[in-house]
């Protein structure tokens, strides 16, 4: 099996690892770095549970090879909290009751974070469309949308 050495910045920390070229970023995060907050729900880009932010863009980490993350900056759920304090977006999820089993939550939070950073003034329809690729089987989605709308409002300073 061919291996390659990569250097990636994950949650602000630099990691240098020699890995098989067929390893996905999701596997790299979970198995090499022990960052199990990134969940694998389908491993084929259909559920969004493994969403991370790569250089500002939300991506299904199961569809990205780890070697493609060479030199990239990756943000996972473990890097979202601000030290011991929750990120306001995480707090918004808690306040809105947007979590049930919690398996989709990390991917959902990262999709939401990228969405608000790109468009801090989204309509409800834009948020709904924005999380379309993240499947949640428990909540019925609407509280997740509420959480994202509330956080966007806070970011804009309306709240």
């Amino acid at each position: 099996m061919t291996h390659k050495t990569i250097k990636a910045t994950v949650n602000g920390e630099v990691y240098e690892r020699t890995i098989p070229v067929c390893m996905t970023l999701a596997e790299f995060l979970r198995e090499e770095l022990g960052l199990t907050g990134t969940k694998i729900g389908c491993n084929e880009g259909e559920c969004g549970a493994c969403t991370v932010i790569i250089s500002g863009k939300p991506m299904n980490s199961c569809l990205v090879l780890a070697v493609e993350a060479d030199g990239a900056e990756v943000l996972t759920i473990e890097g979202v909290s601000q030290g011991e304090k929750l990120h306001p977006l995480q707090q918004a999820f808690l306040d809105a009751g947007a979590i049930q089993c919690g398996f989709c939550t990390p991917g959902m939070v990262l999709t939401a974070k990228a969405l608000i950073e790109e468009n801090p003034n989204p309509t409800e329809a834009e948020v709904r469309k924005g999380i379309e690729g993240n499947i949640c089987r428990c909540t019925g989605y609407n509280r997740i949308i509420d959480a994202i709308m509330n956080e966007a409002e806070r970011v804009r300073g309306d709240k």
Partner: protein
Amino acid sequence: MSIYPIGECLPRKDGRAKVTGKSKFGADWNVTGQLYAAVLHSPHGHAKILSVDVSEAKKLPGVRAVLCGACCEVLYGHMLVDQPIFAVNKVRYYGEPVAAVAADDLRTAKEAVRLIKVEYEPLPLVDSIDDALSKKAMVHDDLMAYQALGGVSPVAGTNIVDTYTLKHGDIDEGFKQADVVVENEFYCAMGQHTPLETHVAIADADEHGCHVYTPAQSPFMIRGVLAKAFGYRVDRVRVTCTEIGGGFGCKVEARLEPIAIALSRAARKPVKIENDRGEEFESALCRGPVRFRMKTGATKDGKLVAQHMLIHWDTGAYTTFGPRINFNAGFGANGPYHIPNAFVDSYVVMTNKTLATAYRGFGITEVACAHETQMEALAEKLGMDSLEFRLKNVLRDGMESVTGEIVTSMGGAECLEKAAEGIGWKDKPRRWVTEDGKLRGKGLACYMKLTGTPSTTSAMLRVNDDGTVTLLEGSRELGQGVETALPQIAASVLGMNPERILMSPVDTAFTPYDKTTTASRSTFHGGNAVMLAAKEIIEKLKPLVAKKWKVDLASIVFKDGVFTSKNNNTLTLHMDDIGKSGIMKEEPPVLATGTYGTKALWDAPDKYHQSKRPAAFWMIGAQAAEVEIDPKTGTTKIIRMGAAHDVGKAINPDSCRQQIEGSLVMGVGNAIMEEMIYQDGVLVNGNLVDYKIPTSMDADFEMNIALVEKPDPEGPHGVKGIGEPGLAPTAPSIINAISAACEHRFTTMPVKPEDVLFRGE
């Protein structure tokens, strides 16, 4: 009178860990030295195994164990012990495990699986309920040869593994009184729970015992099944529960655990096994298909007089919990109505398909589809509004149900009214056409479901040295909020801050016994056990308080979280200050247990399933849907839904509403999207693109939810259950609304765009 913190929308205790990614779900666990497993699945629905050659697989470097049916003849099962870990002699469903490999890493294990050679000889396929009944082929040669563990009644020489008969009144006499009779057939397709987390297990096992890590809904049930299958003493099977990434019933049965144990024993090392999404679809568990043939009669003034239901549940290739679905759904098959003459004739058949199990309600969505189709059809024939028709027949306190019980605490009428109100039922016609040519319709449905009875649970409370309380109870947090609700119930007795009570992780090594996290039973059963334990904690603290204050024990009074002495009113101690007070220092630790079971209140049903009390409690609720059909594409859009459920008492109203909201969207999937499709015995849509479940775009409709509170006298603070109920009437109300909009009676679940477009063809 309200008792703090009952009825408070407290934030969920597991929220912080879940939103930071710290929660450890099944796949997030690893055990030092573990191997990785991969499974070879059957490519056929029904075939004889002529040979299995594992020699090449065994030679691959890094492979530590290879097993197939010939070298591992263990059978297991929850009701009938009929399921091999690996197929023996023949395969009975597409996806059935045939062999498995444990290797140093997953890639090696998968590579080794590709090297296993199996020769098959296809057998005639039992592909449908009719195939099973016609005995075209036998899924099992002799069902009677298997050990039956109870609650299952196989019929010799058939593909029928269970029968259920409910008889109330005289069905023939009943139909003689009927002025109108409607007959319909209804078919529910096969669907899947599709939790985001697939099945996963780690086992560390030898011949003396095993330690399994698994996202189990029913760890104690799984413990029992594993002990029996492998001949372990029960206490030597340890089930450590991981967080569960969604269950909905599919994590109630042992599934990957037996494979992991068998491989671990063979390799003498821990083994981890995880389904990928394709494996999850083809070989995990599903909601089996079911067919109803219904005949219902009413008088011309709209009173139900008789109903006959012929039901065939397809449980797939092995028995699993099929008979339990038959039993539970049989009691609810007539709906929440007063019907003086009723007959349910119900069977569980076996086919060459993947295995059916509990799906958020044990068949109750499906029976609601059947009886609610009938109610709409009868109301239409009688020219009555279907809400009025239902209200005329819904069970009210003091009436006799079809199970022969005089019912009490029935919130059905109120639920119907409020659900209908949620879509503005009374102000809308049954159907209309919008200005842009879309078809709108409204539909209604209700349901009634029992909780599994008898069943038992136990809880332990421990007061820690700082006065916080640790709660041990076996109910599993599936997202429904039990880890928050049970501490709220404990706090209501202890009078303390609920933030100071935490529930322990569940592990059969130290958690007191609980039967299962199913049937919406946890708050009711767990809550009762917790209340008993909490009362005992108070009694155990009283002597310590008396000792500290140097007063008579008899003078100590406890009320609303505060200890006082009748002898000296300056002495007070709040439960939240117990730790600081020092009263427990060097005293024997304060802990208490509460045990609860429903056997004593249960009246064992007779052979016709008549009983004065077949269930500890009943759940009842209703939903109304307004839908819009695009006649050009056949697509259905949900406009709004009204939902009202009798929760008895909402311990945490926000949690209750969340259960209903999630159920509404899951129910949209059931109603118009989800179907597992088999062609020639092969599952052809086993992935999340071809098996569509609702996304955020499918949830864009108005939800008006009402919680009805008719307290149950046996429930803690009056509690009933709300985990499953929201799903039950969702699909039938939507299907009824589509039927109204299209002026066509749809009799399948789901109703897909092609069904709408080609209706009547």
